[in-house]
């Protein structure tokens, strides 16, 4: 058993305090020579791998020895504290882990996986092909990092994968004397504190992020950190109840790094709580507002716009409201707030309809998603609208949730002391990864050569025609015995596709991101003979479709891309589902002029694409669409850069309220 000495209370990287000018310099630097941000690709045949192999050979036949492991780990830890770890220090520990993996799991890491662990140790993003065993690599990497004295978070794509990996690799960590935990949505908050004390924690990114937000907004927030706190706390008992949930942000291994660090970078995560701290928006007030709103008459006091889900008050309506709210206190006394609330109440009364926009269930109001028609019981309308609806339906109004904290991945991940990750597609994002996170990308050469085929692209004039062609193609391919994976961009497109397949009378299965665990079975079966699977891009990412021998003989997995996405990495991800570990496979691309990619750009893009189709045929049109794709991804990139700038501005603005979470 290895005993870890007490580490610092809340390790976290100090914010770098970039100024706008610093950011500009970084952006310019990264653009000057973007190729330097890519490290030289590594294959399995490197000096480091040979060293590890030699170490493995030396100890493979010996029995497991905790003392030897401890000595080697301590040696590594000493080196690691001094900075970059030399091959010679890392190899013995990694060899121990590999041997343990081979012994406990029956899986000895391949050479390429060992190389990837070197990358993870160096704080790089490793770009490795699909099916090269990212899960095992992450586990071995996490174990090695933990042995080097770090607390490791392994960020998986979803809770299901976190639970699966924590369970699968549990024995490995146990054999190495490391504690492992898994945090999912369902983990109770009370126990999390102790779970995070384990050496390795598997979780989806947002769980850890929210726990971090809770720490930041909790009672400990806003005080000095590090040495300052230690000095202030010297000789005093630790404050009770204020213990942070996390043990800090030490090291993290991010799976699907480009998706998490780039595509989702700008999404804000908001921690909210039910306390009505914003004064005055309690139940009586809401009832009163609803009563006032009931007294308003359409046409005289307000006009409504069904399409925009909004109500506009007229001057008469405003005056009536002001009369009704006389003597009110708190927020209702403030005219703009009062009018906004009245507007929300009117929307609840006159625009939202039961059965179309929401349902009343046992749990309360459930929103019906406009585009998919699905029930979204977890979602809430904001700014009082939900509560007005509940009142209207005669339910007890829930509390209006107020924001406690807000953060994006863009701000969260740089706070890890050691950030590294893996993905199948990183090259296209290398520049941005370096600019924002200071990460460099290293491509790992595949173990076996890639023998995927690419059929010529087809572009059809309308979406309906496209789905017909897709269904025909799927039918033909399935007839040969090959499994087919149809990738779509949205849930709606998945449904359209399903309908087209129904028309042809084919059996298929739909995979969506919503219910990952239920659909693990679908993925397991997706590689069988003649199996047809429809999946959205999010479902496509990270799923590892294993082929059976007959399917392999029938030509391997046939991936049909039915649409180009906003950036080419997602397309490559989907295409990467086939041809894993040198398997055969084919990528078909069937696009249409109705695709969102073109629609989003407006009429001029449509004209351009049509012209390209007429003049240059499918190839020309595909080129035009790729250009649109490049345009969109560049725009997204600029939006992210702008968000970073706005966050800096916000930080400056709110400096008086303490450090931002």
């Amino acid at each position, binding site marked *: 058993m290895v005993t870890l000495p007490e580490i610092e209370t809340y390790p976290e990287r*100090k*914010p770098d*305090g*970039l*100024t706008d*000018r610093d950011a500009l310099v970084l952006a310019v630097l990264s653009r000057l020579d973007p190729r330097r941000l890519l490290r030289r690709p590594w294959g399995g045949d490197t000096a480091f791998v040979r060293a590890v192999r030699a170490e493995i050979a030396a100890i493979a036949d010996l029995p497991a020895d905790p003392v030897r492991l401890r000595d080697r780990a301590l040696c590594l830890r000493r080196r690691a504290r001094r900075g970059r770890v030399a091959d010679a220090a890392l190899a013995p520990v990694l060899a121990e882990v590999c041997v343990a993996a081979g012994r406990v799991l029956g899986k000895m890491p391949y050479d390429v996986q060992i190389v990837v662990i070197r990358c993870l140790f160096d704080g790089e993003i490793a770009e490795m092909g699909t099916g090269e065993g990212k899960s095992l690599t992450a586990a071995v990497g996490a174990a090695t990092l933990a042995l080097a004295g770090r607390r490791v978070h392994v960020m998986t794509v979803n809770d299901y994968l976190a639970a699966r990996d924590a369970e699968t690799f549990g024995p490995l960590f146990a054999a190495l004397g490391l504690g492992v935990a898994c945090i999912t949505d369902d983990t109770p908050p009370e126990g999390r504190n102790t779970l995070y004390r384990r050496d390795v924690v598997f979780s989806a990114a947002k769980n850890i992020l929210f726990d971090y937000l809770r720490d930041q907004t909790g009672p400990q927030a*806003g*005080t*000095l950190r590090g040495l300052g706190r230690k000095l202030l706390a010297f000789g005093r008992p630790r404050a009770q109840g204020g213990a942070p949930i996390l043990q800090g942000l030490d090291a993290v291994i991010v799976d699907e790094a480009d998706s998490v660090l780039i595509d989702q970078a700008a999404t804000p995560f908001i921690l909210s709580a039910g306390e009505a*701290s*914003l*004064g005055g928006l309690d139940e009586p007030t809401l009832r009163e507002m609803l009563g006032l709103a009931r007294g308003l008459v359409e046409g005289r006091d307000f006009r409504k716009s069904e399409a925009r889900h909004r109500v506009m008050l007229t001057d008469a309506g405003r005056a009536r409201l002001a009369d009704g709210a006389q003597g009110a206190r*708190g*927020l209702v*006394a*403030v*005219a*703009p*707030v009062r*009018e*906004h609330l009245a*507007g929300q109440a009117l929307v609840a009364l006159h625009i939202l309809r039961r059965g179309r926009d929401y349902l009343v269930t046992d749990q309360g109001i459930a929103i019906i998603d406009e585009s998919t028609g699905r029930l979204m019981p977890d979602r809430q309308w904001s*700014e009082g609208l939900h509560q007005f609806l509940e009142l209207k339906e005669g339910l007890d109004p829930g509390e209006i949730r*107020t*924001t*406690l904290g*807000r953060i994006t991945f863009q701000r969260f991940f740089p706070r890890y002391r050691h950030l590294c990750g893996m993905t199948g597609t990183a090259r296209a994002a290398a520049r941005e990864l370096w600019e924002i996170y200071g990460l460099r990308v290293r491509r790992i050469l595949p173990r076996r050569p890639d023998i995927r085929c690419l059929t010529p692209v087809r572009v059809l004039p309308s979406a309906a025609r496209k789905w017909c062609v897709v269904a025909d193609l799927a039918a033909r391919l399935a007839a040969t015995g090959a499994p087919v994976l149809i990738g779509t961009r949205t849930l709606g497109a998945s449904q359209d596709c399903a309908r087209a397949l129904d028309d042809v009378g084919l059996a298929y299965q739909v995979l969506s991101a919503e219910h990952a665990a239920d659909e693990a079975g679908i993925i397991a079966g997706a590689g069988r003979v003649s199996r047809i699977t429809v999946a959205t891009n999010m479902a496509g990412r990270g799923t590892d479709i294993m082929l059976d021998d007959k399917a392999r003989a029938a030509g391997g997995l046939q991936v049909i891309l039915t649409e180009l996405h906003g950036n080419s990495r997602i397309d490559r991800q989907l295409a990467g589902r086939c041809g894993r570990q040198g398997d055969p496979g084919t990528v078909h691309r069937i696009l249409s002029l109705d695709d969102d990619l073109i629609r989003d750009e407006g009429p001029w893009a449509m004209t351009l694409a049509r012209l390209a189709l007429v003049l240059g045929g499918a190839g020309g049109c595909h080129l035009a669409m790729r250009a649109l794709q490049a345009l969109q991804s560049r*725009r997204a990139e*600029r*939006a992210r850069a*702008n968000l970073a700038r706005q966050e800096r501005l*916000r*930080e*400056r*603005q*709110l*400096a*008086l*309220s*303490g*450090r*931002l979470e």
Partner: protein
Amino acid sequence: MATAFLSQDWYRVADLRLRRHGDVTTARHVYRGEVWHVLQNPQSGKMHRLTDAAHAFFARLDGRRSVQDVWLRCCALFPDRPPSQTEILNLLAQLHAGDLILGDRLPNLTEIDRRTREEDRRTLLAYVKNPLSLRFPLFDPEPFLRWSAPVARLVFSPFGAVVWLVLIGAALAGAILNREALALPGMDQIATAGNLAYLAVAYLVVKALHELGHGYAVKRWGGEVHEFGVMMLVFFPVPYVDASQATFFPGKGPRMIVSAAGILVELAVAAAAFLVWLAADPGPVRTLAYNLTLIGGISTLLFNGNPLLRFDGYFVFADLMESPNLGQRSNQFFWHLVRRVLLRDRDAPPPLVAPREGGLLLVYAVGSFLYRMSVLLFISIYLTLAMPVIGAALALWSLFTVLILPAFKALRYLVADPALDLVRARVLARAALLLVLGFGAVFVLPVPHVTTADAVLDPAEGSLLRVMGSGFVERVLVADGQAIKPGQPVLELSDPFLSLERRLALAERDDARARLGGLPLADRNGRKLWQEQLGFSEARLADLSRREAMLVLRAEVAGRVHVPEAASLPGRFLQQGEVPATVLAPGPSRWRVAIPAADAGPVDAGSRRIELAPRLGRPLVYRARILARAPEVTTALPSFALTTKAGGGLLVDPAAESPISLTPVVNYLLTVEADPAVTLPGGARARVRFVHDPSPIGPRLWRALTQTFLRQFGS
């Protein structure tokens, strides 16, 4: 609207209990009828201007109530226009950045550190960006000023005002009484080696008193001055004091006096020195007094008094117009307008302290920009000439920071600013339209193009009646303006010596004739002698008759006779060659014009028409055409009438006897088909307008600019 009213980030501050920094002092200012509050943090010395509503919020931060409570209270106070959460957040950020509030929570230290670093860098950058105006703080004059504060109270008092008025009045009176002695000396007279020393001394004295004036004025109304230093303006040292505390004074009067104190002091010094100069005998004292007057009077008014530059005059002007921070806000307002035109964004509040301030700001923004540009251009040329390599580099750098960098920023804003993402196409179209319109106005739109010059009438052949023989005027035989024929007598002169000579010659002839008759035929030698004598006398008589005939002045051509001084002529002696009368003959007249060589291009290229307006005191315009153009560029002018000496437009070499122009010119000869009604005397002057084809103004400006440069760099 409500979403902008409520802010997403409100949760960060809602529960904070903030309080005002204890040392902050407040003054109530009124600008154009609007109430503002100026806060000052004595530690940093920085000022902050708050609206009445913002101040109401600030004043209620007492450390007990939360921001949320104070905000609600303010909403109740201003029910018509409650402050939005976004506004409050901005205000809090501003107050925090100015160290005006304290919180109950530990502030973001990283952020504060970043702010400090950015400020340091900005200070450094300001030096790099503007190498032509660098500040070097030297010492803190406050102890001295406090020690000598009674002086301030004495100087800035009614008594001081009276003394000042008397002094200025006396100097003005002296100047008016001695105006002929006052002539502006040329640069060559000021910048002599001997005078430079005096000039330097005078400069030091005047500027020291100037800054002292500012300092005392601040002291007089209770402010403090903590920085005295030297500013290097185009490598020329100009002392300064930090009188920013005056901004804090509630009264507009004291603020203006502080800003104007320097000028007032300098004028007083100049007035005193002028009186000394009037009284003193030539010597060092007088020279020094002269230089003091020069610097204290003229240079101050030109340099410090100009509101378009950021010196004393600017501050006086800003306070007078009740437009605080005029320069900066006028720029902001200009860009606000541009944004409004480009983005159609009518919601953004304009940076005005009061309604109806916009016109002033716009005029000031454009005016001061153009002025600064021209000054910068001037300085650039001067620098480049003075120090070819370093000067040129500095000049280029200044032009880069003032012109190219802002242009680049504007372009980047249009092309890449994310705020424009949704409306970029429209904004770009509007910006392009504006640019095209502007470009069109400058480079395409034809604008009337006219070259004007002075012309002088070239007298026609035979129209001048020149006196051929000297003599006293006997009679004037014609009336002024009378029509005459060729050969008709105009004037009769008499020459008494001529008749005496004639009698003498007659007597000699008779004598010779008589002697000849008395000589024997055989005396051939004697006869020959007297015969010759007789011939000589007769020739003399003939000559005398011819000369007598010349005493009658006759017209050579038909026309109207013009005898300007007909009444006073009789009895006057006229020298041979004088022109007592002219004959105005109908027919083409010829005019001489000199055009500066730089402007000759368009004239040579051909004009649509040439208008010639004689200076008659009544509107009369002839069509003229070019008869001849002198092939060479010269400095010789046809007449003084074209020069500033005689009401013309060309500068002339004052030392030369004949009219020599200071700028090279091209001489033209124009001809006008005469109007029978009016005939002009020779030497008459006229204004000529060469009306060219309308052409865009851009190329013309460019030509003028390049010529200026060529002239500057060529010499």
